[in-house]
């Protein structure tokens, strides 16, 4: 069954700047794809092609100009079974780590007791144990990112949208986080839609990679990644991996 079904999605931003009307921006045009249950799909594309816009539409924050979106067979509504992690980590500086982690779950109506029963294990798994009472400003970049992910995973939603979750991290930390995310997904098999700039990251994590064209964005190419998950560093050196990477880079150049 498909958890996400997008058909002929088009979105145009009508910008009103300071009284005068700036020209409208067509961000997405005629975009269609789907994500199956338990599937990990990555979206790569040039900067400004509408990736973040797509995720914001899927999480119900903006209404598309045209097209249809179905989440688990239901038409997109104001409250969706979707957990969204935006491009900036957007932690609340005035809440401690634990309160930040549980924010999404609490706002989604999960009871305190239920969250408390899961927390100790999750804090260990997300490498944040011992920092429950710290302020976000006292965490490293990687820890902040893991906290934002923990907040997303704690929400009782079947689909997770990640907007460049590791984009701001250095190459080594990013590799660590990718390995770690695979570990998390091994025990928590939810559907994930990941937006990234990094072709290696997409091939490392995803079952399927979608390449988007330049603005207005639509799907240019779809690449299936057949290596079993979780994948290890050795996968990166397989000839098949290099071949897929070349293919993706080439389509991106055409985009």
């Amino acid at each position, binding site marked *: 069954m498909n958890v996400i079904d997008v058909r002929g999605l088009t979105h145009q931003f009508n910008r009103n700047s300071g009284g005068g009307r700036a020209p409208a921006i067509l961000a997405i045009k005629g975009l269609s794809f789907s994500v199956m249950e338990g599937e990990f799909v990555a979206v790569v594309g040039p900067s400004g092609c509408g990736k973040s816009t797509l995720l*914001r539409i899927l*999480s*119900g*924050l903006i209404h598309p100009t045209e097209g249809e979106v179905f989440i688990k067979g239901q038409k997109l509504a104001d*409250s969706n079974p*979707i957990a*969204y992690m*935006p491009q*900036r980590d*957007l932690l*609340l*500086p*005035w*809440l401690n780590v634990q309160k930040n982690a549980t*924010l*999404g779950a609490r*706002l*989604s*109506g999960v009871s305190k007791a239920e969250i408390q029963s899961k927390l100790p294990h999750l804090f260990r798994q997300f490498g944040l144990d011992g920092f429950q009472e710290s*302020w*976000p*400003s*006292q965490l490293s970049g990687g820890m902040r990112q893991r906290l934002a992910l923990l907040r997303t995973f704690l*929400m009782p939603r079947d689909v997770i949208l990640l907007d460049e979750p590791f984009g701001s991290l250095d190459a080594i930390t990013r590799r660590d986080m990718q390995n770690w995310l695979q570990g998390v997904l091994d025990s928590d098999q939810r559907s994930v839609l990941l937006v990234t700039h990094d072709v290696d990251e997409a091939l490392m994590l995803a079952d399927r990679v979608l390449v988007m064209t330049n603005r207005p964005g639509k799907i240019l190419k779809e690449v299936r990644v057949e290596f079993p998950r979780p994948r290890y560093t050795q996968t990166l050196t397989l000839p098949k991996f290099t071949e897929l990477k070349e293919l993706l880079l080439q389509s991106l150049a055409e985009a």
Partner: protein
Amino acid sequence: MRQVNNIFPSFLVIVSTVVFWELAVGFWDIPHGILPAPSQIMGEAVRLRSVLLGHALTTLTEALAGLILAIFVGGVVGALISSFGFIRRAFLPILVITQNIPMMVLAPLIVVWFGFGIQPKIGIVTLVCFFPIAVNTADALMRSDQELLELLKSMGATRWQLMRLVRIPEALPAFFSGLQIAATYAILGAVFSEFAGGTSGLWLFIGRSQRAYRTDQMFVAVVLIALLSICLFLLVRWLARIAMPWHISESQMYSDE
């Protein structure tokens, strides 16, 4: 340690100024009526301590009561201005204009209307103090991080939850910087308000000293006013730390670098 290092230079300047002052008054034999020596001012302060305490308490009460009222009025006005475009357009310009009316002019009028009691004086302090609080709060409430609001909406937050979890905490630093400005005005406003008349207060004490040509006593009052202002300022700083514990940890982090 950093704090001590920060205060130390100004402390040094103050001490050397006082020492120089003391020596200069003796050396050039300056008449006491023009410039009394620091030791003489200290002596007067000690001698008049109980009288001074009474006057200082009056002024402090006016200032504190006015400031507390200003916090409520400023907070409410700030919230209204930020939430309703109509109120903002109708009242913000008027508010800015009224801020340019000097309180010295208003004080006698307020006495004519409300008498010599403490209430009109508290009212004057409130009038002086609420503006920086209101403007700072309104400004900060209008600048909330849109992406943060969006994220919480996607999590299913209600309007009130957005206010409590994002808008208010995000506006706190600006509110407190407004309050800090207001606090420095509060004692000054209270002293000015006594200009209009009354039976107790530091302005009254200064007036009496002046008529008696007691320059030393006038200096005592001036120093006292400065001290009260500093105390109020520090009190606000302390309140800000209590209310925003995360804020300190942020600035600490930057200072560690």
